């Protein structure tokens, strides 16, 4: 990932209202509108889930210039999500909800360059998560 993309990602997250997991709550609200079928996969209280999401976002932003660590964490996350029954197709509404969260919260401050950076980055992390899910399911099938 180039430095300009990293900068756009960091700047956009810095603009998000993170207190009380505000942005993360919006994200989950939107996700459940777009894909109500994923709601039962979240068995913990949604406020706690939103807090977890905010912490993960903060960790990702801190580690953007450490692609190996990022990759390995995303694969592990994907492996866990695979275990919850998340399918590849469900990464699409998650991405859409994520973009919507930025657009809805930041309005015009979410520039086309920031959106492009997030599209590229989400393709990367979701792909790593898919890879993690594939590896985990292979391990489960052939322990």
């Amino acid at each position, binding site marked *: 990932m*180039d430095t*300009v993309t990293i*900068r756009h990602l960091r700047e956009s997250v810095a603009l998000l209202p993170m207190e009380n997991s505000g942005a993360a709550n919006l994200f989950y609200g939107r996700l459940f509108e*777009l894909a109500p079928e994923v709601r039962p996969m979240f068995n913990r209280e949604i406020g706690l889930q939103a807090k977890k999401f905010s912490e993960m976002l903060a960790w990702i932003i801190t580690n953007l210039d450490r692609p190996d660590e990022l990759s390995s964490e995303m694969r592990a996350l994907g492996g866990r999500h695979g275990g919850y029954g998340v*399918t*590849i*197709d469900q*990464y*699409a*509404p998650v*991405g*859409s909800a*994520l*973009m*919507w969260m930025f*657009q809805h919260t930041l309005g015009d401050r979410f520039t086309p*360059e920031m*959106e*492009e950076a997030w*599209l*590229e980055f*989400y*393709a*990367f992390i*979701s*792909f790593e998560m*898919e890879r993690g899910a*594939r590896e985990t399911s292979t391990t489960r099938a052939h322990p």
Partner: protein
Amino acid sequence: MNSPLFRNADRQARFLRFVVDSALHSPESSIKEFDIGIAVYDRRSDYDPRMDPIVRVEAARLRARLREYYEVTPPEHVRIEIPKGHYVPVFIPVAGDSTPSDSDLSVLVPPFRCLSADPGDQNFCDGLTEEVLHQLAQLPRLRVITQSVAVRLQETDGPKPQYLLEASVRRAGAEIRLTLHLMDLTGGGSTRFSNIYQATINNVFTTQEQLAEKIRRDISAALHLGKRATRASVS
């Protein structure tokens, strides 16, 4: 579509099928985000892509999937690409034998230098480099080597590129000036071709595409090459 990369990715497979079918059946037509939303993601007719960017999200993921697919499974006949900012796929014929022949020329294309402090200009330079790489890859008998591949070749003592294509980009308002040098590395770094290109940015993608096409034509002429692929219509 039988690859593990697509087998469990139904929507991504449908997305690819939809854009390929559309391009083959109506090569002159553009493919709109809205149409993909309706046809592939079952959105209703009041769907607003600004509020639900699912197609843009999935297009970025599909580009990544295709890149990975071709890395694992080099194409025998045609490689499909969906250029950034478009939904119309490009079909790039692959030479019968994808193994580079001894008579092939090779050119190293490092990222174009952006001579500006404006971070937006860096994006333009990066996009232009990508577009030029794509255009040059269509030329026969020319192996295009990116910076990252060059590093790998160096580490593995692989073949060294014969040519180096360097460019720098300056901007003043909407005016762009690109200075390009093609250096012959086997001839002690002497300049084989050099030119200055000027353009006015109206639409970023169109400007990048037009500049890249001019550069491809000039490099083809300078190295006495022809063209091997055509771009399907671009929206």
